């Protein structure tokens, strides 16, 4: 597999979120959110705490029913958890009584049974090698570091070969160095698999270094306020962080968000 060159404009839209509204009791968490992801695109959503990012992601994943509006993936409406959607959360939440390998195989085991899981062991091992923790496959999560645990969680997400990856602050519990490293890993994986990805994050540099487009969300009620195209070349690396262009983009977004978060 070779790294693709970016061509989002030409790619067809695979993920469509249309007039999505979500209310919790009387509180409107999301209000008529519209959003489209193109095939192979990396989207990132950024916004202050409580603006509805996780809610949006959960509805996109079919984990939460919307109050109104709809989500369509590959022309089929999302009405529940789907095999072609992979999810990852801030916590690795590996089951402590299963080995790393067992944890990675969990989605297969749940959907297709133990036999299928056993058959998929080879693939799981490949994935673990891919993220660099092949050696830890028979180890229990209690003995993994935070970074290793998140790598295992990545493998667990990838084992079902999803077309779309939804990532809710996947590395924000890790320290900064590990996080930078993991972000580059994530980029590599997304490029290799040509996966359509959607990342929720609090970190502006993280969003900028990873995304093709950044959706800035505002709160009360949650909605997409601005969409920013990031035209840094692919594959990206951490050195780009120190370029002037990068600094400008970050500065622009910070201004935008700062205004929102701490009043006019």
């Amino acid at each position, binding site marked *: 597999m070779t790294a693709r060159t970016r061509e989002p404009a030409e790619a067809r839209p695979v993920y469509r979120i249309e007039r999505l509204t979500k209310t919790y009791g009387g509180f409107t968490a999301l209000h008529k959110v519209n959003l489209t992801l193109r095939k192979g695109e990396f989207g990132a959503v950024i916004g202050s705490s409580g603006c509805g990012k996780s809610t949006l992601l959960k509805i996109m994943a079919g984990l939460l029913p919307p109050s109104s509006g709809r989500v369509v993936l590959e022309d089929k409406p999302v009405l529940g958890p789907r095999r072609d959607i992979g999810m990852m959360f801030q916590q690795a*939440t590996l*089951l*402590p009584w299963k080995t790393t390998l067992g944890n990675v195989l969990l989605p297969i085991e749940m959907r297709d049974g133990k036999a299928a899981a056993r058959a998929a062991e080879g693939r799981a091992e490949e994935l673990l090698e891919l993220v660099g923790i092949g050696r830890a496959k028979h180890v229990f999560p209690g003995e993994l570091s935070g970074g290793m645990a998140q790598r295992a969680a990545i493998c667990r997400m990838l084992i079902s070969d999803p077309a779309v990856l939804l990532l809710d602050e996947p590395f924000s519990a890790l320290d900064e160095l590990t996080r930078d490293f993991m972000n580059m890993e994530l980029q590599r994986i997304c490029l290799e698999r040509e996966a359509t990805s959607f990342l929720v994050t609090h970190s502006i540099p993280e969003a900028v270094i990873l995304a093709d487009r950044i959706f800035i969300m505002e709160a009360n009620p949650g909605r997409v306020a601005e969409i920013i195209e990031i035209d840094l070349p692919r594959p990206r690396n951490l050195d780009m962080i120190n370029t002037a262009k990068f600094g400008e983009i970050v500065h622009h977004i910070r201004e935008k968000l700062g205004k929102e978060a701490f009043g006019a």
Partner: protein
Amino acid sequence: MIEQSVTAARAQMPEYEGDTVWSEHEPLIDRIPRWVAMTGLFIAIVGIWYAVTALEIVSNIILPTPMETWSDIVFVGGNMVSGGYMLEALVTTTKTVLLAFGLAMAIGFSLGVLVGETKFGERAVMPYLVAIDTMPKVAFAPLFIAWLGFGIASKVALATFIATFPIVVSTAAGLYAASENERMLFKSIGASRMQTLVRLKLPTGLPYFFTGLKIAAVGVMAGAITGEFLGGGQGVGALIRVSASQLDTPRVFSLIIYLSFLGLALFLAVVWVQKTFVFWNKSDKPGGAA
């Protein structure tokens, strides 16, 4: 001014070396080695017991002396070792206890899942369980005998009845132990409700379940002995009752002490199984879900 006084202080103060005098000390009571503490406590208990009997504060037909009790313990031990009737009684009681424990585990677990997993169980079944549990269960002994006869079955039923409730409560509590994160994970990988229950909630709730088992281990002992007290049969409870009716208090006490070893063994067995089985509960490093 400050500079000055600091300099003065420094001049008077000796340079501190590595041998810092940390005030951190465990209080005396915590530094006693375990065997000393346990032996000490044992001696204290027996000492008070001896004093109470020696000073004739309590008559000998109510509280035997430690020596009488000890020699009866030896006698009972001899009888058991030589396969006498007391061994038979102990075997009967042990059988009752183990059967009841197994049953209580099964029933308590099932009801606990019903209560913890369904709203129906939580809202409609639980109040009845509490009401039933506060009833004096002794009054149900005739009912169990009517259905199950005078063999160990009726004692098993009574012991099970007593031991089930704590398991229900703790199993139900355990089902709430899985975090929102873990539930979301299972939902996202397409796990069914049953799969989520069996593969996530139950394993996560195991430590709670074991807490319930510890309380139940004690309850099942009480239940078996009470059953044997009330409904005849051949167990240690019946022996205690006979000895009590003969005012043979040393025998009563020595049998009670043997029973408490049985109870302790059951309790420790639960602790051991928990340690072996719930191996992941020892460490809670970042990777672990619990």
